[in-house]
C-alpha cells in the first residue's frame, strides 16, 4: 500500500470524490487557487475548475449557510473552515439550520454537506487558534462528527462523510499533518462513521482517545508494558458514538481513562465517562478518569503547550493510578 501523509490522504479523498461525483464541490478561504491554507486542496481547482473548487470571502457563517442551501439543491458541498476556533463564527448555520434541515422538513430535504475544520493544537497557535470544540458539535442532534488519527482514516472517514446524506463535521489535526501511513488506493476505501478502532488490544485498562491524542495514548501503553496491559480505543467518530465498541472494551478491562485535547470540564470525555458509569457500572473496578488540559485558554509557546496538552507521562500516571486500585 502506498504511504501518504495525513494531508495527502485528505487531498486524495477530495480528489477522488470530486472525480467520482460531479455534485461534489469544495468551498472555503484559499481552498482554490492557493490549494488550501495548509495544502489540503492542492491542485484540486486546476483539475475541477474554479466553480467546483471555489475560493470564498472570509464569511464563515454565510459559506456554511450557502453550502447548506446548495446541499438542499443537488450539490454535495465540502466547506473548509480554516481553524476549529472559527467554527464559533458559523455556529448558528451549523447548528440551528444545517443540523435540523432533515428533521424540520420531515426528511424531504437533507443536507449532504461536510464541514472540514482543522485543529491547531500543538502547533503553537495560541488561544484563538488552538481550541478543540468537538464536544459542542457532538452535542447537536442531526450532526455527525469524526476525527481521524491516521492517514488511512483521514481518507476513509472523509470519503464516508462526503458520501453521507447528513451534515458531517470532519475535524483534522494539524499536528498530524505530516504523519505518514499506509493508505488504501481503493477508490471505495470508506471508513464507516460510528465505528471505533482498537489500536492496541489489552486486558487491564481501556484508554479512549481520538485525533492526535491517540498516539500519546499508544506511547503510554508502550511505556506501561508489561506492567499494565492497556487497550487503546481510537474513537474516530464522536457522533454517532460506537457505544457497543466502547462498552465491550470497558466490560473487558473494568477500567477507563479518557484522553483528549479539549478542556475537561463539560468536555467530550465526560460523555464517554458517564456512559461507562451508567452502562458498565458493574464491570467498573476503578474510578473513571479523564486526562485533559487544565480549564484555561490554549497557550502558544512549546513549553506551555507541553504543560497544557496531555502528555504521555500524564496518561501513564492516570493509568497507573486506576490500575493500582483493587476496587
Amino acid at each position, binding site marked *: 500500500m502506498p504511504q501518504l501523509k495525513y494531508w495527502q490522504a485528505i487531498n486524495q479523498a477530495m480528489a477522488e470524490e470530486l472525480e467520482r461525483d460531479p455534485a461534489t464541490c469544495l468551498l472555503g478561504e484559499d481552498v482554490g487557487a492557493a490549494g488550501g491554507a495548509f495544502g489540503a486542496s492542492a491542485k484540486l481547482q486546476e483539475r475541477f475548475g474554479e466553480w467546483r473548487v471555489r475560493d470564498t*470571502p472570509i*464569511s464563515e457563517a454565510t459559506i*456554511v*449557510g*450557502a453550502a447548506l442551501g*446548495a446541499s*438542499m*439543491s443537488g450539490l454535495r458541498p465540502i466547506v473548509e473552515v480554516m481553524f476549529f476556533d472559527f467554527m464559533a463564527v458559523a455556529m448558528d448555520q451549523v447548528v440551528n439550520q444545517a443540523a435540523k434541515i432533515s428533521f424540520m*422538513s*420531515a426528511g424531504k430535504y437533507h443536507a449532504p454537506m461536510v464541514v472540514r475544520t482543522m485543529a491547531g493544537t500543538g502547533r503553537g497557535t495560541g488561544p484563538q487558534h488552538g481550541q478543540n470544540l468537538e464536544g459542542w458539535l457532538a452535542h447537536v442532534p442531526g450532526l455527525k462528527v469524526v476525527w481521524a488519527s491516521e492517514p488511512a482514516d483521514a481518507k476513509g472517514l472523509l470519503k464516508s462523510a462526503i458520501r453521507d446524506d447528513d451534515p458531517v463535521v470532519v475535524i483534522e489535526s494539524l499536528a498530524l499533518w505530516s504523519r505518514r501511513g499506509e493508505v488504501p488506493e481503493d477508490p471505495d476505501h470508506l471508513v464507516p462513521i460510528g465505528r471505533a478502532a482498537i489500536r492496541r488490544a489489552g486486558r487491564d485498562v481501556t484508554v479512549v482517545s481520538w485525533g492526535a491524542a491517540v498516539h500519546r495514548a499508544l506511547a503510554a501503553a508502550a511505556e506501561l508494558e508489561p506492567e499494565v496491559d492497556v487497550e487503546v480505543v481510537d474513537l474516530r467518530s464522536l457522533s454517532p458514538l460506537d457505544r457497543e465498541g466502547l462498552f465491550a472494551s470497558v466490560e473487558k478491562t473494568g477500567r477507563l481513562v479518557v484522553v483528549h485535547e479539549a478542556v475537561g470540564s463539560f468536555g467530550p470525555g465526560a460523555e464517554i465517562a458517564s456512559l461507562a458509569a451508567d452502562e458498565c457500572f458493574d464491570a467498573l473496578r476503578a474510578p473513571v478518569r479523564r486526562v485533559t488540559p487544565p480549564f484555561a485558554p490554549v497557550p502558544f509557546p512549546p513549553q506551555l503547550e507541553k504543560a497544557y496538552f496531555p502528555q504521555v507521562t500524564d496518561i501513564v500516571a492516570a493509568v497507573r493510578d486506576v490500575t493500582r486500585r483493587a476496587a
Partner: protein
Amino acid sequence: MTEWFASSDGEISSEQALDIYRVMLTIRSFESAAADLLAGGRLPGFLHLSIGQEGVAAGVCSALGPEDGITTTHRGHGHCIAKGGSVDRMMAELFGRGEGYCKGRSGSMHIMDADAGILGAHAIVGAGLPMAVGAAYSAKVRGERRVAVAFFGEGAVGEGVFHESLNLAALWSLPVVFVCENNRYAELSHVSMHLSAKHVADFGAPYGIPAATLDGNDVLAVASAARKAVGRARDGGGPTLLEFETYRWRGHFEGDPQRYRSRDEVASWQARDPVARFQERLEAGFAVDVAELDRIEREASTAVERAVEWAESLPPAPPTSLLEDVYRSGSA
C-alpha cells in the same frame, strides 16, 4: 434604478392577475383563520402573521416557477402559500398533526416543502439568506436556470449574514433575488431604532447590485419588479435587491399588545390595503367583474376552512415521531 423596475400595462395577463388575487386571498384567509384558532385556544405555539403584506408574497412568487427556490422567515406563511405550499399541510403543521409539513413537530415558523421549492422558513433572523445564495450557487454550478429568492424583513439587515450574502452573490454573480419586506418594525422596535440607512435598497450600491425601494402594497408593481429581477437572474445577470415598503396589520406575534405604535398609524396603512387596491385595479384595469372576484374569495376561504376542518380532525402527532428524520442516513 427604480424606473427600470416600474410596471407597464399588459405585462401581467388577466389570468395571471386572477391567480395573484387568489393567492392574496388565500394568504389572508389562512392567516385570519389561524389568528382566530389561536385566540380560541385551538392552536398551540406562536404565530407571526403577514396580513397586510400579501402583495409582496403574491407578487414576487408570481414571477417564479416550481423549479425556483425560496427561503423565508418566522413570518413566512404568505411566501409559502404563494410559492405553492399546501394550505392543508401547513394548517396540519400549525395544529401539530403528523400530516403537517414537519409531521407537526416544528410549527408555524418552519414550513418547508421540497416539491414546491420552499427551502424553508427559518426563525433565526437572517438565516435564510445564505441558504438562498447557496441554492443559486448550485444552479450556477449545475448549469440550471433556477432562481432563488430570499424573503426577509428589514430587521435582518442588522445581521451580518445579510451583508455577507450580498457580497457573495455579487462576487459570484449568482441567480438570487433578495426581497426585503420593510414593514417598519422589527418585533417591538421601529426601523429607526435599528437601522441607520434610509433605505434597505441603499445596500445594493457598494456591491454593484441593482436595487430599488418600491411600494409593496401595489401587487402589480411588485410582480413587475420581480419579473425583471428574476429574469435578469435567470439570464445570468446576477443578483438584485428589492425593498418593498409594506406594513403588518397584526402585532409582531398574536397576543402582542402593540404599545409601540398608534391605532392611527395602523389605520393609515389599512387604508392602503394591498388586497382592496388590487381588487379595484382588477375591476378597473382588467375589467374583471365583481362576481368573479367574490367567487375567488369564496373559494379561497373554503379551501382554508376545509384545511382547518381536516387538520383539526387529525390526531396529534405521536411521540414516536420525535426521533424520526433527525438523520437521513443511519442515526446517532
